[in-house]
């Protein structure tokens, strides 16, 4: 079969493969393997890693809590202007994150449209806080949950629910016992993608939440700050992100296999 594949295709495919793998290999080659321990201590990797885990998990939960109901409305309701609504909800996926950060600043910053009220009446400031970093990453990653969940909901044959209700199940019971189990693989896929996106988020976070170790400096921000003063540490931190991303992909593959 492979003998039928034209040679130019092989060559271009090989170039494509090298293009993707070379930067990753280069990171491994340039990594400060010799003084791994000292570069771990010098990089503040522990602090950034801990914060990244907290921020990305919290934003995944928030994405699910807000994104799944949104997907439900988009998939199941017949509200007018639904396609426009979908486009708006999904917009952050294609928007440069720094634009999202500026938007968040204008909306939820201490002097922002809604943020001013939060600050003046409730004394809540989101900028420069971990909560602000969580909000910035959620802005960017929630649409992925919406997309995955909505396509999952659409692929479920609603006759199962109808059958359940003719057998006496109330809607809530039908959702819990029919829809949720059928939707589970898609929900999981959406959650993992959102988590991966949150983990790599840079632009919205640094623009809205700022950059302070232990509070808003997640791994990508730490990479950015270290890249000049300590390139070895930056590569080391990058490798942590690569490793986490690989874990995500492996986890995703398992989810998909389970679903079939």
């Amino acid at each position: 079969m492979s003998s039928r594949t034209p040679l130019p295709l092989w060559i271009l495919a090989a170039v494509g493969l090298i293009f993707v793998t070379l930067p990753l290999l280069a990171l491994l080659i340039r990594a400060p393997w010799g003084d791994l321990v000292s570069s771990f201590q010098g990089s503040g990797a522990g602090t950034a890693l801990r914060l990244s885990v907290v921020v990305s998990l919290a934003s995944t939960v928030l994405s699910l809590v807000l994104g799944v109901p949104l997907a439900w409305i988009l998939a199941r309701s017949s509200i007018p202007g639904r396609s426009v609504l979908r486009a708006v909800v999904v917009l952050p996926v294609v928007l440069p994150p720094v634009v999202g950060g500026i938007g968040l600043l204008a909306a939820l910053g201490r002097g922002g449209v809604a943020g001013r009220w939060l600050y003046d009446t409730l004394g809540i400031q989101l900028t420069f806080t971990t909560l602000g970093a969580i909000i910035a990453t959620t802005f960017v990653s929630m649409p992925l949950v919406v997309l995955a969940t909505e396509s999952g909901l659409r692929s479920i044959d609603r006759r199962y629910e109808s059958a359940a209700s003719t057998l006496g199940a109330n809607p809530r019971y039908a959702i819990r016992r029919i829809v949720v189990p059928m939707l589970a693989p898609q929900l999981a896929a959406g959650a993992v993608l959102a988590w991966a996106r949150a983990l790599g988020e840079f632009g919205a976070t640094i623009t809205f939440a700022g950059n302070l170790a232990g509070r808003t400096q997640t791994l990508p921000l730490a990479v950015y700050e270290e890249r000049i003063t300590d390139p070895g540490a930056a590569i080391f931190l990058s490798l942590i992100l690569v490793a986490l991303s690989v874990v995500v992909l492996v986890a995703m593959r398992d989810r998909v296999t389970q679903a079939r």
Partner: protein
Amino acid sequence: MRRSIITLTALTLVLGACSSAESGGGGTTEPAEATELIVFAAASLAAAFGEGIGPGFEEASEGITVVFNFAASDSLAGQIQSEGSADVFASASDTWMDAVQDDPGVADRADFVRNRLVIITPTDNPAGVASIGDLANEGVQLVLASEGVPVGDYAREALGNAGIAEEAESNVVSNEEDNAAVVAKIVAGEGDAAIVYESDISAAAENDVAAVGIPDDVNVIATYPIAAVTGPPNADLAAEFVAYVLGTDGQAALEEYGFSPIGQT
């Protein structure tokens, strides 16, 4: 379903990769004749070089286009060392000019301008900052440039001179990538105070921030070196540009944008 997941994965990864804030100076085509001069300049020079010196030099030397790359001096030095794509380097500190002088080397190096530090606050000055000492007050949200970025290092030096290095450092809420990002946070009203260059105020932010002076005995006055970078084929043109910056027209343009000419402090 598998297909939609794959599509999503692709989207995520592609978009995730777009999120870096790096604004590279690479990718410029090499001209057959020297008609394009590539100048890497400290972010604080963006207005003075971009609007003043650049057009002035282009007018004085017909047919030449000056292309600027403005970023924090540390980033620029890194880019020059790895890509070697600059004809001229104007740094906000000796540290990063020294680095470029070591590798790949420079010619015609000279100090060309000075810049003083100043405290900026939002116009309503929410934390009531009236002097550099107030930056040590509890709860003041202080925004600085990162360590390693010249203005960040100078600011920390000034805070040290004022004897409040520790207190101020614990008030820092964000370490920004360059002075423009610092100013942006204050213009947005997010931080209570920041330390930047005087030239940063006379630019776009003039009406959006309030300034609090820093006395001479604790202030740090940055001296900016400029030089032609060794390597690119535009050496003569680069030398001309350096001479223009050091000359009467260049110095006048810099003064207009809030810098102190090299003759005075």
